[in-house]
């Protein structure tokens, strides 16, 4: 499956990047991430120019990375500032430094032609850095191509079958969806509004609602990387007021970043931001544990699916039905991005 280059991708949650060297491979490009003393996130190519030793297996000295093999030392721009035993530093001694933007608690890197990197085009997930929300988060490495995770997230009817007892109830698979594609902004929306639904444990235990609910799922997919699920949970029959705050409902903003690592592996970054029980640690612990479990149910299923698909001829036969309307739209926008990027690696 091909990659969409010339795009921003989440390489890490901000909290993962610190004074230790972090290795991530994004679109097949090995990166090392760290934070300078001043707090700036840095992403460099994770291969020493000398003999290709991974810089992530090395050490930080102040804001520089000292290669763990023979000591070539790189500053945050990727320039080599020291080589062992001699004064002259070869002009070509540098590693690529990737454009980095830390926004909404996520560390985005630009993969592609750096001339085309425009931070203004990074889609937003403001709840993740909003003090009015409590956030739990994680990352699961997936041994499957990223397209399988896109398919998975665009069709939440699978909640009923794969996540029953956690977030799935019969109404999810039973309720018709509305799909919209904003062709110019390149965004897919999928909405499923359940007027009268069973409350799954994920929301019953976290909100304290007893009885049936009105449950809305509004997906916004900003290909290639960012997926937002606006989840509105309210006691059955409670709808947003015509004006003013929707304060009778509980809102969870569920964010996924789908970052291709290699052709057959993907980083599944996830976060759940909520506007209720924000100070209740036990709710945070419960939602963290539950969403982790749900993500791992997807990971297990997609890892199996990857092995099956990888063993089949390229154009395996599929059958799409109504629930796949949004997934098909997402695939097309992704294919468009794959087709429009620059070709080859930036070096």
């Amino acid at each position: 499956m091909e990659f969409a280059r010339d795009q921003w991708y989440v390489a890490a949650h901000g909290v993962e990047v610190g004074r230790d060297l972090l290795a991530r491979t994004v679109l097949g490009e090995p990166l090392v991430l760290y934070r300078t003393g001043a707090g700036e996130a840095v992403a460099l190519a994770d291969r020493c120019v000398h003999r290709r030793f991974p810089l992530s297996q090395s050490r930080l000295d102040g804001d520089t990375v000292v290669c763990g093999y023979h000591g070539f030392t790189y500053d945050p721009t990727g320039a080599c500032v020291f080589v062992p035993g001699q004064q002259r530093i070869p002009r070509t001694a540098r590693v690529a430094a990737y454009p980095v933007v830390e926004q909404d608690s996520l560390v985005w890197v630009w993969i592609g032609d750096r001339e085309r990197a425009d931070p203004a085009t990074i889609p937003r997930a403001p709840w993740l850095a909003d003090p009015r929300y409590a956030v739990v988060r994680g990352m699961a490495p997936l041994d499957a191509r990223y397209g399988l995770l896109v398919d998975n997230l665009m069709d939440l009817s699978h909640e009923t079958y794969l996540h029953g007892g956690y977030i799935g109830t019969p109404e999810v698979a039973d309720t018709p969806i509305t799909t919209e594609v904003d062709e110019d902004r390149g965004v897919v929306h999928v909405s499923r509004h359940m007027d009268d639904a069973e409350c799954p444990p994920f929301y019953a235990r976290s909100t304290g609602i007893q009885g049936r609910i009105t449950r809305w799922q509004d997906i916004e997919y900003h290909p290639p990387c960012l997926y937002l699920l606006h989840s509105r949970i309210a006691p059955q029959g409670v709808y947003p007021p015509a004006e003013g705050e929707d304060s009778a409902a509980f809102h969870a903003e569920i964010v996924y970043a789908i970052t291709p690592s290699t052709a057959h592996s993907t980083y599944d970054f996830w976060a759940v931001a909520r506007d209720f029980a924000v100070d209740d640690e036990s709710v945070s612990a419960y939602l963290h544990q539950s969403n982790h479990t749900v993500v791992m149910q997807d990971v297990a299923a997609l890892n199996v699916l990857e092995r099956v698909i990888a063993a089949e001829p390229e154009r395996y036969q599929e059958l799409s039905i109504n629930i796949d309307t949004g997934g098909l739209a997402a695939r097309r926008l992704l294919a468009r991005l794959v087709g429009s990027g620059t070709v080859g690696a930036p070096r």
Partner: protein
Amino acid sequence: MSPGADAPGGGRVYRVHWVPGTDTLRGICHCGAQRLAEEPVALWQWLLDHPRGHHLPTVPAADPTGRQAVPA
């Protein structure tokens, strides 16, 4: 959400409504043309082919905006 209307910001928007209580999908092009279908692959093909093919025999759907389902 009015059929055939453009998004805020003026984007071209394609919409597919799953008609409640049925297995039918209603596709609405940004030009206002509509079509019913029983599965999404052919429906997307028809939508994305705008405006070509809008004149092909379709299940004519009443357009709430009063516009005709004809090529733009």
